[in-house]
């Protein structure tokens, strides 16, 4: 009898949970129709002031709101980064008001859990049911590629401010006519610059350790090609590739120590970052062997979780430098820090910038973005002052940015962040080559690192 009672209770509990889960369509925190606000908040970097919006509103009749769908991993191993991306996006609309060109802009955030198959199901929902005009894409390159392929024939604009697979705006660009990387970057774009900088510092022999997947291949390839073409040497046997998700990099670190090189280029993601930094310090290499980090490796999302002494003084390159002394950057950093009590990572800056591109583009189109091709052309014509610095798009839809050489320093409040020690201005995705030269070579892979010496 008690057993049956327990069963009934259990069944009721499950039913109750399911009902709670689906009983609030649209009423939950992840589905937001942000009310138009006219408060000019401190983080405002857009050229659209509240006053302009009201004047255009009088001119354009906007029957339907512009709808934006944001796909991010909000659960699973990437939840922290995906959460930053979501927060940056939402903060932009809260700060700057969710109207443009007389239209309300509404958005919906969905959780992919970092799984491409789930993302493909959910994007159908966003496009077919929700009626999204713009999809802002995912964190992972593989999910981004899957989404780009699914969306290429659909009547939407697909923006990827984080997923950085090189070929989407390079060799494959013609396949994805509705794709733009506004607010984003290509993986090798930032490591090209570091290759040049490393050579100019006098480093001649460099070993690399990168995660063994497409993003690691592209980051490492970008560094290796520019560094070796400048005259440096990267011995192919001294390019180490560790599996994605490794958390015991001690053996790799001892190998790197034994190579007798001038410096090491490192690119790790996720839990491998703190493991590599920890080993680097424990093996006593922190002060003897310079480490040059790829962008994500020393992003504030990673370094805020490790002991400060392991990262202070490390050099990396990136299109995001939270310590950049520019008003647009510092306004954003302060707004984000004030709202969420943490220094924003590049994930947050990326979705903020994507939102900025959306608002500015809709404004420039007068609220009508039904002509997707014309909208993308308009977007390419914008020159924005973003938290990344000045941003314009090249003809392939990829931003041309200032790329920063960054150093990790301690702030007055005891937290660590990246400050700029050198700037390469107007770096496009092909730098220092021309587009034709660059596109003639294959995309970086384990087999092709663009190594001039070998």
């Amino acid at each position: 009898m008690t057993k049956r009672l327990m069963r009934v209770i259990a069944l009721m509990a499950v039913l109750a949970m399911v009902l709670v889960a689906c009983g609030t369509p649209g009423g939950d925190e992840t589905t937001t129709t942000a009310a138009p606000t006219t408060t000019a908040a401190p983080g405002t970097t857009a050229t659209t002031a509240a006053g302009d919006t009201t004047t255009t509103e009088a001119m354009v009749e906007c029957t339907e709101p512009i709808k934006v769908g944001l796909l991010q991993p909000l659960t699973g191993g990437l939840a922290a980064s995906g959460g930053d991306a979501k927060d940056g996006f939402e903060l932009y609309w809260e700060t700057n008001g969710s109207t443009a060109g007389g239209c309300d802009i509404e958005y919906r955030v969905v959780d992919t859990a970092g799984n491409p198959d789930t993302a493909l199901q959910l994007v159908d929902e966003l496009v077919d049911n929700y009626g999204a005009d713009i999809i802002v894409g995912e964190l992972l390159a593989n999910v981004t590629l899957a989404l780009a392929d699914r969306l290429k024939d659909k009547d939407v604009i697909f923006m990827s401010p984080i997923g950085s697979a090189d070929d989407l705006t390079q060799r494959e660009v013609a396949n994805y006519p509705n794709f733009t990387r506004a607010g984003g970057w290509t993986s090798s774009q930032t490591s090209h610059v570091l290759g040049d900088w490393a050579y100019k510092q006098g480093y001649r022999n460099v070993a690399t350790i990168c995660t063994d997947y497409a993003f690691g291949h592209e980051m490492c390839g970008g560094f290796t090609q520019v560094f070796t073409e400048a005259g440096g040497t990267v011995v192919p046997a001294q390019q180490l590739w560790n599996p994605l998700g490794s958390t015991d990099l001690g053996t790799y670190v001892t190998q790197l120590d034994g190579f007798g090189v001038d410096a090491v280029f490192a690119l790790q993601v996720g839990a491998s970052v703190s493991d590599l930094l920890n080993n680097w310090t424990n093996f006593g290499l922190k002060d003897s062997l310079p480490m040059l980090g790829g962008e994500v490796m020393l992003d504030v999302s990673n370094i805020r979780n490790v002991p400060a002494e392991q990262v202070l003084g490390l050099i990396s390159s990136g299109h995001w430098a939270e310590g950049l002394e520019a008003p647009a950057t510092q306004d954003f950093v302060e707004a984000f820090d004030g709202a969420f009590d943490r220094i924003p990572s590049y994930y947050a800056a990326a979705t903020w910038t994507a939102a900025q591109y959306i608002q500015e583009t809709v404004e420039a189109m007068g609220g009508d973005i039904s002509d997707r091709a014309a909208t993308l052309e308009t977007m390419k014509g914008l020159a924005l002052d973003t938290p990344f610095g000045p941003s314009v798009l090249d003809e392939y839809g990829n931003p041309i940015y200032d790329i920063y050489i960054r150093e990790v320093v301690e702030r007055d409040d005891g937290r660590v962040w990246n400050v700029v020690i050198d700037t390469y201005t107007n770096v496009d995705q092909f730098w220092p080559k021309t587009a034709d030269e660059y596109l003639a070579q294959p995309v970086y892979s384990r087999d092709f690192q663009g190594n001039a010496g070998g």
Partner: protein
Amino acid sequence: MRRLSLTGRVKLGLLVAAIGFGVAAPYIFSSFIVGLLSLALIAGLFAMSIDLLAGYAGLVTLGQAGISAVASYGVGYMANKVGAGVPAQILVAITAGLVASAVFAAMAMRTDGVYFIMITLAQGMIVWGLSIRLYQITGAENGLTGIERPSFISEYWQYYYFVMAVVLICSFLLFIAVRSPFGASTKGIRESESRMRMLGYNPALQKFYVFMISGFFASIAGILFVYLNEFISPSAAYISASAIGVLEAILGGIGTLIGPMIGAFIIVYIQNIVSTNLERWPTLMGLIFIVVVLFARKGIVGAISAGWQRWLDSRESRSGGPVEDLDDLPDDLAFESSEPR
């Protein structure tokens, strides 16, 4: 023809209602929901293939996604890298799935229990590892795109009907398999391997056959899946994909064919619909599993059929009428007799 018992009539009625609902779905629901129904049907077929091993042979596998991913990659490779037509894609996919099944079965057929779990786990992870390493074949993390459904099922609703038809046929074949003498001897192995050996059966060979049949249906699910998403990447082979299949089978009711299908529908629902409204949907899923394992160890179908049987019993004891249903309960629903070892 013998008149159907009450249980039989109810089951037939439910089956007809389910098929009727399935046929009507594209007229009622949006393309998104119909896409999810396709996904749930495919996930259900996949979970059934796991259940054939786990529920009938007593061999829990954690590597089934490896086999279906091999088939999916067969389609993806032929479409993306070779540029072959659909017949060649499917032929290669099924062959690859069966070859993988044969190799895996040969490795695992002499084990059982936790050893079988560990070997199949390793097998699945090998497929996952290869899918990440063999860039030229699998495209590594980036996966394979450029897969297109044949024109006659290119629309989402056409593909839905196609999936429904294939899954119905496969379910029917599985139904025949588990009720045949072959199915009976499979259950014999689950109950007592040594006794089956005494009776002259070769348990290892029997396991090999079951593994092959299971692998065949997993391959079909893999092929349906890759044409649904028109994309395949290593996450399809990862352990979590296998584990979800096992959980679907357990949730719905292991040792039944309809149970895994019901489990699949529930999981797909939570993953795709609840997740848009509830950020902590994995917690909800975890709670449901805990509740089911604690209070309904034979899954949802097991709990329902046990309740139904109790209702019949109490009705009979009230009316004192003939015992109509006891013999008629098909073997695959007779849970009380199949306690796990």
